[in-house]
């Protein structure tokens, strides 16, 4: 038989490091570093024990959530958070769209591209909590600082992803519309918008959901909303109320998650 001439075993050739010695050295290096790193973490075991007791009270509060005694605070915080979320998403997306178009290499002139990419970089580099601290210092405690924070963070997120999406559109469709004698604005409206719209809607819904979660976090540094209520409850050792707030946050995030994934599927 002629098939006898061919080998019966095959191994995938190494893709990144061709040299076997290097591969082994790097693997050993990673393991050694891991052990050394774990060794430097200081753990105060008696403190952990104390913490467990507190954690137990926390869990008990969770198991017996108290929705009623602080309901006024909770509902006010919730309304603030939801308002903050919706307004900041709408405003943020509205500002992101022109910035995203400007940050797409294939649509914008060089200098516009660099300016828009710089705005995006600044927005993405600063974490929400840091911006929130800054805005709280500027405009005082309350949901207005939260609204500004979330709008700002939304710009970095949506504008970057929209710009990347625009850079990957089908150029043939753009060329065809350009060949009709269309202006730049008509080109964007006819050749670019139809190609990126489904993704823009999907991203906006996703951002809505992120903004709600972030509104709980930035509330802790004073930017209003349900996070502020949660912070107060924990400060007062009212773990039953804190548990109730966390359950509500989880519930709303789940609803947002399911409805946005349903909507996105519907839009495809």
């Amino acid at each position: 038989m002629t098939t006898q001439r061919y080998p019966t075993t095959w191994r995938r050739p190494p893709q990144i490091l061709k040299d076997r010695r290097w591969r082994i050295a790097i693997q050993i290096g990673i393991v050694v570093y891991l052990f050394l790193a774990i060794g430097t973490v200081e753990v105060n075991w008696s403190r952990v024990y104390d913490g467990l007791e507190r954690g137990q009270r926390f869990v008990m509060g969770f198991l017996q959530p108290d929705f009623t005694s602080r309901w006024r605070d909770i509902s006010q915080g919730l309304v603030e958070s939801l308002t903050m979320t919706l307004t900041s998403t709408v405003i943020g997306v509205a500002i992101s769209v022109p910035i995203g178009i400007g940050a797409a290499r294939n649509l914008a002139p060089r200098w516009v591209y660099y300016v828009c990419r710089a705005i995006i970089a600044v927005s993405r580099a600063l974490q929400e909590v840091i911006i929130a601290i800054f805005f709280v210092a500027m405009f005082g405690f309350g949901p207005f600082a939260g609204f500004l924070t979330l709008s700002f963070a939304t710009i970095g997120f949506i504008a970057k992803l929209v710009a990347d999406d625009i850079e990957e559109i089908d150029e043939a469709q753009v060329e065809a519309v350009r060949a009709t004698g269309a202006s730049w604005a008509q080109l964007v409206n006819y050749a670019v918008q139809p190609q990126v719209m489904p993704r823009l809607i999907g991203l906006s819904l996703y951002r809505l959901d992120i903004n709600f979660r972030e509104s709980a976090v930035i509330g802790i540094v004073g930017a209003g909303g349900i996070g502020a209520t949660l912070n107060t409850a924990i400060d007062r050792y009212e773990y039953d109320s804190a548990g109730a707030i966390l359950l509500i946050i989880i519930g709303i995030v789940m609803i947002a998650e399911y409805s946005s994934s349903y909507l996105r599927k519907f839009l495809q």
Partner: protein
Amino acid sequence: MLTLEGLSKTYKTGDAALTEVSLSVPKGQIMGLIGPSGAGKSTLIRCINRLVDPTAGRILLGDVDLVRLGKADLRRQRRRIGMIFQEYALVERLTVMENVLSGRLGYVPFWRSFLRRYPGPDIQRAYQLLDRVGLIDHADKRADALSGGQRQRVGIARALAQDPELLLVDEPTASLDPKTSRQIMRLLTEICAERGLPAIVNIHDVPLAQQFMQRIVGLRAGRVVFDGAPDQLTHDALTAIYGEEDWNAMRQGDDEQSQAEAEARDRMAALAR
């Protein structure tokens, strides 16, 4: 109608795509542009409506030199040149009607195109063109719901919506089956004849070119190496354009294909009876 004088294009990489191409296309003539891949067919067509900027030479459409135009003038001149693309290049997520109306973009202000409020005569004309290419019932469908042949018909209607004085056609049948290819070529030649429209058609299917074109220009490495009637396209001429190959075998293959098609048609007709 269209005159090219010493048209040259050198890309930034230093590749000379076109060298000193001079051509003249009179009114109503359908000219086929053949040549191997990379001969500069696509570049030549794209230079004419300035999707690619030529390095040297003149392009006269009527008495306007298209090479020396500012942005606004270029847009105004592009309206006069309809273009039909390989792979259709329709905007997939827009409706068929929006695709056809996009041929009017150079004529309407932004607010009209944005709100899809086109002037009555434009809409009437779009319907008329859709009827001409046999797609009037598909006006409200999305372009990506159509088959290949139907999409190319929409492409033709979009180009005609511009009321062009010249058609540029880039590999119109590259992604279509042989039968649909012939239907599309027939439609194109009929429409050009109806309106006395001159057309430049990039085509790599030589037998198809010979069947439908009135004149054939052969490009090789960016230079015109053949210019004449389809029946002058002899064995030697093809060799000059493409290099050595068994041309008779290729023609035979095409004959076989059309015979097979004819047989298949007969069989379908027999089944229908």
